[in-house]
């Protein structure tokens, strides 16, 4: 497949993967490997001094994998900037998935705080990938602010509902000068393929793989779907007819006469 470049780094795989909700770190590691991904998200948490846990990083750190720490849990731009600085120090990367969703019920991103944080983080040298509503105007504002990519949602986080924002994703993809990564809501390989066919540069999938009956097999299915979708986009899809009438694909000469 053709390569994707974000923050000066080349990605062959266009499937980014989250690490939440797996039943064990071992299962997560196997599933991540099966996706063929080169970009993996992690969250951050305050260490509990009374209750030490297994270090999940050792299950995902590989030479070909770019860690994408997220700012989940922050409520505003100030907290997001501190979280990004902590992530850079802890994980040695300037990539940051900026997510500011103060409302825990719908987890919808706050556009004003996200734009303000993107501006500040880009100036500080971060490679910013903001999680946002599928808002084409916001995407252009983020571009002006120096974002490295935009990550519009297909549907609310963890819902597996697919591309409810399809028409707005189309506009974003048409207008964007930075990579478009469809994040959140992708619940089936067909959703991922559809996003890629629309011309998205990549998709980020977590829940659909993690909660599948067989996460490793589902990881493989997503890998193929993303590749197929990208190839279809590059091949150029045929136009959808506006008419209800059929258009013959076989000659209608009556050869039995």
């Amino acid at each position, binding site marked *: 497949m053709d390569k994707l470049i974000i923050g000066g780094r080349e990605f062959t795989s266009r499937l980014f993967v989250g*690490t939440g909700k797996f039943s064990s770190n071992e299962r*997560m590691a196997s599933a991540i490997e099966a996706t063929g991904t080169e970009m993996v998200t*992690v969250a951050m*948490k*305050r260490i509990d001094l009374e209750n030490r846990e297994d270090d999940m990083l050792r299950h995902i750190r590989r030479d070909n994998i770019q860690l994408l720490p997220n700012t*989940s849990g922050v409520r505003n731009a100030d907290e997001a900037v501190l979280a990004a600085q*902590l992530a850079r120090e802890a994980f040695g990367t300037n990539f940051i998935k900026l997510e500011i969703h103060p409302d825990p019920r719908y987890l919808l991103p706050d556009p004003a705080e996200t734009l303000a944080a993107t501006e500040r983080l880009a100036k500080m040298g971060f490679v910013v990938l903001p999680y946002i509503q599928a808002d084409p105007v916001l995407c252009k504002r983020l571009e002006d602010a120096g974002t490295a990519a935009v990550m519009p949602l297909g549907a609310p986080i963890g819902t597996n509902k697919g591309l409810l924002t399809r028409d707005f994703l189309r506009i974003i993809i048409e207008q964007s000068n930075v990579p478009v990564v469809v994040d959140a809501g992708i619940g089936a390989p067909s959703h991922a393929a559809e996003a890629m066919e629309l011309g998205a540069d990549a998709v980020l999938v977590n829940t659909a793989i993690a909660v599948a009956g067989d996460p490793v097999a589902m990881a493989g299915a997503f890998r193929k779907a993303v590749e197929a979708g990208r190839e279809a986009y590059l091949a150029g899809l045929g136009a959808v007819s506006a008419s209800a009438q059929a258009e013959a694909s076989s000659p209608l000469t009556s050869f039995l006469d």
Partner: protein
Amino acid sequence: MKIYVNRAETELGAEATIADLVAGQQLPDRGIAIAVDNKVVPRAAWENTPLHEGANVTIIRAVCGG
């Protein structure tokens, strides 16, 4: 002196640095980051950064997430 580590009250020696805190708590030296009063202190400066009475120390590590 009394400081707060991830909001929990912790007792430390009077001259303690961040490096002393890390060693005392047997924290790993990889995969964590530390902020004092909401300012990140780079690893290279842990040795020479003294803590002060009432300091608000944040220590984070990676957890699974999307």
